[in-house]
């Protein structure tokens, strides 16, 4: 032990050499106050005590990266060499599909879809977002693969290279296909994010990139300035990290085996499946509402649901304003605003609704819109943004979509239309359920990912980019969704 460590001097009575957890704990503390010499000295003692040499190497690499004040090119190089050495020792089994790292509900649905279709599939999450998810929603967490000596709440159990490297090794050993957002997988938040693809590919693991939003948006490239403004209002800090997002985008364009980005094509050179949105839900859980009422805002109120987790982004103020104006005109409208609610509660509330006023700035329907469609509600969302919607109507399935396309400028009139027209609500609601089952159910997810996996894993000749082409796709032509909207707009018969 270094004799000048005052903490050690005061704890002479403790048998340090035999207490590897204490040694590691002290090493961690020292790494955080940037005492690299002490840290590595402690680690030398830990090495003798630890059985798992892999852990030792990763720990050493992590500490070399952690002591950033003293970081040099040499220490980063040593850390990288250690990490690569550990990776080279992994024997890949390629036994399951993996979904990582962000605890987002769509990972849960995709995972479940593939499990239901008979595939071995694991959702492997970095952390748990508790506001809307439950721990049992996902199969495995990064902390689950940490060794026992890493105490919960300590530095290495939270955000360190060690933790992410352990998760990566687990993926490397078990995954056949890894599904990640544009920010990458377990290495995405580490200094070695650019090593993720080569290491996975060397192990025979395929990579599917599925951007969802924050991992993807470079604000200065967004083609809809209202979306840009809404992003700036709701997520202002992302404007400061555009360089990092762009670098990852260029990286994955080059290295991914498949990219599925839906309508989000602002700043991307490549996608492999032309789909409007890759979100899917469990339509068995999200049952269609059994009956439709005849309320028309006169004697009986019509219930409008709005789900604004991000208010500017969804255009909440425009919804409030439109409903106020319609109420002032005498229409009876109940507004139910759902925010930060657990999913099972959302399902119950949706069953009581007539209309889902989903989002009017973001140029698409989102997960909430799909849930509304699956429930059989008449859904309103912005499908008017030409750069995003047109190519998905031409080359994908958006032409079948029964969502009433609505912008802040048309919100009041479209709301009036749906509130006063229960027959139209019913017609759109039934079509919506059909659409959700066809394109956004777990079966639909299994269809899409099955096609992708057949191509990238087994080399089958699958025309992914035209998977949903209205004229070429057998899947699309089967049971077309019929509804009275044209390009998302309702034009009454003359």
């Amino acid at each position, binding site marked *: 032990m270094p004799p000048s460590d005052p903490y050690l001097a005061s704890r002479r009575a403790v048998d340090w050499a035999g207490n590897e957890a204490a040694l590691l704990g002290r090493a961690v503390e020292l790494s955080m106050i940037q005492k690299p010499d002490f840290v590595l000295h402690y680690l030398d003692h830990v090495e003798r005590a630890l059985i798992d040499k892999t852990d030792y190497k990763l720990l050493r690499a992590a500490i070399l990266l952690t002591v950033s004040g003293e970081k040099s090119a040499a220490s980063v190089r040593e850390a990288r060499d250690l990490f690569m050495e550990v990776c080279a020792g992994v024997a890949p089994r390629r036994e399951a599909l993996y979904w990582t790292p962000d605890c987002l509900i769509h990972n849960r649905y995709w995972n479940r879809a593939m499990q239901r279709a008979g595939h071995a599939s694991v959702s492997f999450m970095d952390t748990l977002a508790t506001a809307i998810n439950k721990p049992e929603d996902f199969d495995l967490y990064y902390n689950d693969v940490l060794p026992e000596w890493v105490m919960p709440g300590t530095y290495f159990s939270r955000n360190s290279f060690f933790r992410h490297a352990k998760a990566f090794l687990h993926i490397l050993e078990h995954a056949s296909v890894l599904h990640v957002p544009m920010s990458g997988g377990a290495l995405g938040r580490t200094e070695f994010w650019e090593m993720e693809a080569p290491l996975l590919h060397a192990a025979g693991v395929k990579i599917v990139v599925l951007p969802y939003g924050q991992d993807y948006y*470079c*604000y*200065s*490239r967004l*083609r*809809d*300035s*209202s979306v*840009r*403004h809404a992003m*700036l*209002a709701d997520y*202002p800090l992302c*404007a*400061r990290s*555009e*360089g990092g997002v762009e670098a990852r985008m260029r990286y994955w364009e080059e290295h991914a085996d498949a990219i599925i980005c839906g309508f989000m094509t602002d700043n991307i050179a490549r996608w492999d499946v032309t789909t409007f949105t890759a979100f899917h839900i469990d339509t068995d859980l999200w049952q269609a509402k059994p009956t439709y009422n005849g309320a028309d805002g006169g004697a009986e109120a019509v219930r409008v649901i709005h789900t604004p987790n991000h208010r*500017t982004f969804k255009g909440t*103020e*425009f919804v*409030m*304003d439109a409903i106020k104006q319609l109420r002032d005109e005498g229409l009876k409208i109940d507004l139910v605003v759902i925010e930060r609610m657990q999913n099972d509660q959302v399902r119950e509330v949706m069953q009581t609704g007539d209309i889902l006023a989903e989002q009017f700035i973001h140029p698409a329907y989102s997960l909430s819109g799909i849930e509304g469609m699956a429930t059989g509600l008449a859904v309103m969302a912005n499908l008017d943004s030409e750069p995003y919607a047109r190519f998905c109507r031409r080359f994908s399935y958006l032409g079948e979509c029964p969502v009433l396309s609505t912008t*802040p400028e048309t919100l009041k009139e479209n709301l009036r239309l749906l509130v006063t027209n229960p027959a139209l609500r019913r017609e759109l609601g039934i079509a919506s359920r059909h659409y959700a089952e066809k394109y956004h159910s777990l079966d639909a997810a299994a269809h899409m990912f099955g096609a992708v996996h057949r191509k990238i894993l087994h080399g089958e000749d699958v025309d992914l980019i035209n998977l949903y082409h209205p004229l070429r796709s057998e899947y699309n032509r089967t049971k077309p969704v019929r509804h009275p909207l044209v390009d998302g707009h309702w034009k009454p018969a003359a």
Partner: protein
Amino acid sequence: MRLSFFSKIKKTSAGNNGDARDSAAAGGLTKHAAKLEEAARLMAERACGQAIAALKDIDKKNADSEVWLMRAALYAERDDMEKAQSSFQNLVEALTHEPQKRDCWVWLPGIAPEHARLWSASVPDRLASVRIGADADGVMAGEVLVAHDADITLPARREGATRTHVALTLFAWAVRHGAVLARSLAADVLAGTPFAEAEAEATGRPGNRALIVPADDEVACLSKIYDPCVRYAWLTRERSIVQRERHLQRNLGQWAIHAGLIVSHFQLDAQGRWDVLMPRFIFVDPQSWPARKSGDGALRVLHFDDHPDYSGTIFLEHAVERLRAKGTAIELVKMKRGDEASRRAAYAQADVLADGLNAPGYSADAVEAMASGLVVTANLESEFNCRVYRRYSFLGECPARSATPESIESVLTALSRDAGALDEIGARGREYVARHHSLDTAAKLFTSIDECLQVDPRVEKHPRPSLANYFHPKQWALHHKPAARA
């Protein structure tokens, strides 16, 4: 008004112009005054090596920002760029950690002097207003515009000081005193010094208090502008702008990271960040612009043709010729923009100001013209650039008539046929300016900006209040009397 390095509203009892101690005292730094004085004297004699030696026994631990400033200037003068940059980094580090007074609204380069003077009246009372900009010789200088009761002492310029030293001194003073550092994207205090490239980070690190007001040519990253007509317009106006593309993008990226607040520019295409969304950051005193008198003859159309291809002058000329050929009483007056007096005279003789037809948005001239009761035509067609201002700002209330090269003839036709409309639109223009571009509006906005930037992100746990929806019609209406939407 001539800029003065020796501007001083109230002298402190201990203050002496031209004294190093005085300059240091302004920043609360007197620790190494004697050595700095000696170094300054040697620098004036261009004995930079000896000047550096005079400071050599002040070690890194004891050096304060004044010492690093002097070292950066001296090493720059000796062309020892590695040490100059290192000293500059240490200067920024020292400025970041030393107490800041934050008692001034500082107008930095890029804000026109006449605007700084006029808008100073709207600066919150708790702050003095100071301008820093290049003097006639291109050397940075400072000017106290409004002091209120504060004791504002600008650093004195030393005899024989290098340009770099002068710029660094004013930069450091601005960082110490600026509660708000208003500037454009590209015009730097440190322009022409080896530290210009680092100005964004150096301004941002000590508390992110820069308010960025981009100028037209600072956001014209042509590869990011969607409308090729606008690209064409820029290429005709300033072809060299394509050589600055990388620099402009770098500037935008740097300030997106380091600015306190960024005001949007109408040409939003390349802007990845804005914090205040308004069609044009321009404020006038509406009372000082007399209302136009109704004409009873030909429709008098005024047009500033400083950049004819950019503005689409030829389309305007063509439209006027066709109208005259059809017998419409219409007169086109083209002139260079000139000074304010000449513009006032021109507005008094006109009914319509034909603003640019190619690039989206309205100009500062359009605001003056609306304040004068003229009808303004401007290109407000671009879906990308206009929709967001209608949804989230006050463009929906703007009475300017949208006109493009294709539609200018029909717009002028309609105006020439309806003299009553001229008066009505003119009156609405005056109302619009009073509501959104007046000094009263500026005063409210500046107060909000000041309150926002008072929150120090390095210290406070809560984020700065968002001004993104400051002019949102649905929220603005809660606080301000609504006007009829155009």
